[in-house]
Every structure is written in C-alpha cells, then in structure tokens.
C-alpha cells in the first residue's frame, strides 16, 4: 500500500494541475498539496516536488472541461482565492468529478461542491469589485496607472475586461500586495514587476509623476461624488457595505478634502 504524500508545487495554476495529473498517474494517496513558499512537512507523510508541465496541466484542464463547463470556471476562480487548503479541496472535488458518470458541479447539497462554489463566488465578487474600483491616474508619460490591493489574486481575471475597454490608451494596474502588475502597451497585455518606491493612493500630496490636469479631474470627480449625494437619505451603513473601508485609500472620491 502506498504511503500518503504531500505534493509541493510552484504556486501557479498550471503547477497545481500538474500535481493533480501526477497524483492520478502515480496513484498517490495525497495528504496535502502545498505551495513551495509555504510548504510545511507533515509529521507522518513524505513530500514530493512537482515540476510544472504545461502539457500535463492541459490534459487535466481538458478533462475537467469535458465533464463540465461551469466546473472549470469554479475551479480556477476558487484556486485564485489563495484560501488555506484550497488545493486539497479542489483535488477532492476533481477526484469526485472523475469518479462519477454524471456532473456533480451543481450538487449544492454536497459540502465540497458548495464550498468551492462559495469560494468561486467570493473571487468573482472581488473581480467585479476591481473592475469597478480601479482608479487610473494619468502619468506624465501618458500611462493610466492604478494601484490595487485586492483580497484575492484577481489580476489574471480582470485583464480582458480592461483590455477591451481601454484599447486606445496605455494602462497599468499594479497589485501592491502580490507585487506584480498588468501593463497594456496599446498592443498587448504583459505581466510586469516594478520597483515601486511609492504606492499611489488617493493621498492629498501631489506626486511629480502625474500631470497637474490629473489632479483637476480628481477634484472634479470628488466634487461630483459629493454633489450627487442626497443628504436626507443618508445611509452610511449601506454605503460601507457596498464600498468596504479597506478599498477607500485608492478611491479618489473618498479623498479627504
């Protein structure tokens, strides 16, 4: 009988899918799947390092895709939640999918299915929030620049939205927490990393990186935001429910003036 093993992968989605492939192929009893940066060896299980292989990842991806269209999206979204232990949860989900003949992805009375659908929904909500809350500031070299700090790793999910919306301007969205960004150069979107010596929030101090006109527009937006409020209907609880405080520092309309 095989002993249980912890699989260590590089943290990428393809890495995770490769781990799933290897586990199936070598009939490994998986006790956990961990990112190499956070890996802790279990007391009673040995570890095996997984080397990401795109072709193997792709076979797993296609296999899931054949079983269910909606499941593949849920799996990818839930993975990006970076939730502690999400890899093992997803692995079990995938095992279940491949074991049965019918699709289980809509069996909301099953604990794992429901949990993954909930994680995917949280990530979907964060994706939508970032599509809403990104506030570009125009730099002197004509790049629309934004810092974000999302709860989940949603940059890969929002790229397409911004790509098709702002097709005639250069833009850069940088995730301060995960230290990488996506940059559109009028031709394609690239993943980049930067040495940011300052994080651009909605601070009152003007940065030399931005045009004066940029601050004029922020001022106009800030004014608009206040003028469009109806004071006799004030409902701050609802306001913060829709715009949680942790996002305020990047929103120019929430600048304290």
């Amino acid at each position: 009988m095989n002993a249980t093993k912890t699989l260590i992968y590089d943290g990428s989605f393809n890495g995770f899918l490769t781990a799933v492939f290897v586990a199936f192929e070598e009939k490994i009893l998986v006790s956990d799947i961990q990112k190499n940066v956070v890996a802790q060896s279990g007391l009673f299980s040995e570890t095996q390092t997984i080397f990401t292989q795109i072709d193997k990842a792709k076979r797993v991806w296609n296999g899931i895709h054949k079983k269910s269209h909606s499941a593949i999206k849920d799996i990818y979204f839930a993975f990006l939640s970076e939730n502690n232990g999400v890899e093992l949860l997803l692995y079990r989900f995938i095992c279940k999918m491949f074991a049965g003949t019918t699709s289980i992805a809509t069996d909301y009375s099953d604990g794992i299915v429901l949990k993954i659908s909930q994680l995917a929904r949280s990530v979907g909500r964060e994706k939508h929030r970032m599509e809403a809350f990104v506030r570009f500031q125009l730099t002197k070299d004509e790049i629309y620049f934004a810092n974000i700090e999302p709860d989940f790793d949603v940059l890969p999910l929002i790229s397409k939205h911004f790509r098709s919306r702002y097709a005639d301007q250069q833009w850069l969205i940088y995730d301060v927490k995960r230290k990488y960004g996506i940059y559109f150069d009028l031709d394609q979107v690239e993943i980049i990393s930067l040495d940011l010596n300052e994080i651009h929030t909605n601070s009152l101090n003007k940065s030399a990186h931005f045009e004066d006109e940029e601050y004029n527009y922020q001022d106009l937006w800030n004014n608009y935001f206040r003028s469009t409020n109806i004071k006799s209907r004030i409902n701050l609880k609802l306001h913060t429910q829709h715009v949680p405080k942790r996002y305020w520092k990047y929103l120019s309309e929430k600048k304290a003036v």
Partner: protein
Amino acid sequence: MSLSFDRIKEKLNILADAAKYDVSCSSSGSVRKNTTQSLGDSSGMGICHSYTEDGRCVSLLKILLTNHCIFDCAYCVTRKSNDVQRAAFKIQEVVDLTINFYRRNYIEGLFLSSGIFKSPDYTMERLVAVAKKLRLEENFNGYIHLKSIPGASDELMREAGLYADRLSVNIEVPTISGLKLLAPDKKHEDFTKPMLKVKNEIIQYKSEKKIIKSTPKYAPAGQSTQMIVGATGESDKDIMYSATHYYKNYNMKRVYYSGYVPVAEDSRLPAIGTQVPMLRENRLYQTDWLLRFYGFGVRELLNNDHPNLDMDVDPKLGWALRNMEYFPVDINKADKSVLARVPGLGMKSVHKIISARKFRKLNWEHLKKIGVALNRAKYFIVCDSSKWEHRDMEGTKIKGLILQNSTGKFRKEYSSQLQLFS
C-alpha cells in the same frame, strides 16, 4: 487650478445636484463591442463604480445640461419659480467630462437630462448633439442614457435612439389628476408621445435587423420611467397599476420609484423636512420584482381589499399569509413557479434547490446551507424530514412568530408607526 476648471467645477456642482433626484443608474442591457481599438466596451453587464453616502450606486455621470427651465412643476427642484443658482454646460464640456471620467474608470458612461429652455425641441436637439459627438467624434462605446424631453418631436426622438443606449421620460406623478394639480403646464400626452415613438422605433429597428443585419442599433437598453412616491395622496395600488400599464403598453425595461424628497414649500406637497418614505419605496420595488421575476400578477398583490402594501412584512410574505391554502409546498417536488412563491426563497435559492434535489432529497440542513431564509420559509414548506410545522396556524399567528424571531432594517420605522395607529 486654472480658471476654466474652476468654472466647470461650479457648473458640475449645480448640475449634478439638480440631477440627483433621478434614481435610475442602470448601465446594463446594452452590448457595444469595441471592435475598432477605440474607447469603451459594454458587455451588457453594468458596473457600479462607487456608492454615495446615501447608499445609491454611482455608475453614470448623471448631470443636467442646464437647470434653466420654462416650466413650473411643483415637485421639481429646477422649476421656474424656485430661487436657485442656474448654470448651463456647453456641449463640448459635457463630452470632455464624460471622456475624461471614463478613461479613469470612474464611470460606465453618461446620463444626460435637462431643464427645458426655449422649447422642448431646442433642448432635445442639444442632448442629441452631445450623444452624437461622443459616438461619432470620440468613437465612444460606453453607455449613454438620454432623457426624452416631454413634447419633443418624433424626428428628434428617432435620432436620439441611434446614439443613446437608453431613453427615458419620467412620468413623475402616477395619476393624471395628480399631474394636473402639480404640473399644470404639462399635458399627459407630452409624456406618452415620445414614449410611444421610442417604443415603436425599437420594435421597427428590431424587425428590420432580422432581415438586414447592418441595421443600426436603436436604444438597445430600452426605455424606462420614474414615479415619485408620496407627493400626492395615491395608494400603492394606484402606483403599481400605473407601473403595470407602462410595462405593458410601452415595453418599459424598468419603472423606478422615488420616495419624494421635499424640495419646496408648497401647499400642494408635503412640507420640507418631512421624512422621505423609504420603507414604502422599498416595498414598491419588492412588488415590482415579484411582478417581473416571480410570476405574480398585480391583482394578487394589490386590489380593492388590499389597496396598500403591508409595512411590517414584505409583499410576498403578505400574500402568502392571506393565501394559506397554497401551503405547505413540498421542496422536493414543487415546480419552479410554485417554489418562487414561497416566502424566504429568492430565485437564486429556487435554482439551487432544483439543481441539488436531482442528487438527493433535501432536508433542513441542505436548505440552510443553500441560503434559504428558513425563519420565514419554514412555515410554508415540507422537506425530507418529519420535523416540519404541523400546527395548522392562522396567517396572523405566523406573522407574529416571524416578527418575534427576526430583525428588519426598517423595524424601528414601522414599530413606531404601529404605535401611532394602535
């Protein structure tokens, strides 16, 4: 800051403040694909980019072109006789603001309305000119909502729909008698004529598009209207029957209900400082949803015996308590349309139940995890469990139990109202 920015800022403050009583903020329902590497792309899903401190969504730059007006409608903040600061944007100023806000990801697009200056056509012409410039000169694919000016000509309404995603005329006063009282210069036909024109154009363009694919889009997000609630003495029945009329006869995408915010001392209207009827507004929206998505008919919810909605319970629960003979419903067997009528079940839960029950019979634990509001639903359903509400209770008894075991965000409001009338 430069002089022109200061001037724009002043205008923006005046003309955004005057536009804010229009509650529509929808930016959905229109697909404009960015196929030419230009600015903007609408996928059909709206985005709320922010929320004001009153909790309303900010999706569009919502402004008036001007607040000069030749009319004197009592309910309106820009009416001729009101002593307020007046301002007017130039066409290019609105275009520049829209583009610069859009590029910074502040908004989904523009919602442009206006006071009526000189004549309805003169005003409508300028609104159309802004939209035309955005589409043809700036290649803008974002969302544009234009107000149809009451009394505007058919030709202008026809042109407006070629550039706008949505058109709307606010009926404002739900009854014709109320309109006569509050807006004596306006005729009911002034509102319905442009509505009818837009409706017919939409139908015509759609049928032409089926034959000739290159037929341009005409107001692809349809039209909407708004009614003020609580300005005149109309009942909830008056309002919802009127709304149903507009949904049916003008193919409205949405009817909005706006609790009247007193903006003037006028003997015909509630005094300044009167509380905005937000709970009532909320109940009307719930009713609107039940009519559009839950398969209810307006006569089931409001009729001569029940001309007003319950304040203490939502309209679906209110209906269920008056119609106990429909219940209990078996969660594992009932049709979608029957499930949709169970208090505490939203359409999302209904779909989840229908998916999940294919795998196994559902019990209380499953329903709880799916997210059903069991505190309300439990009195109206049976599931895979012997533990269900066996007592044959009167509606009033159930209502008491539900109110006892729950908290509502408006509870304070109606409990004081109840004391007042008891």
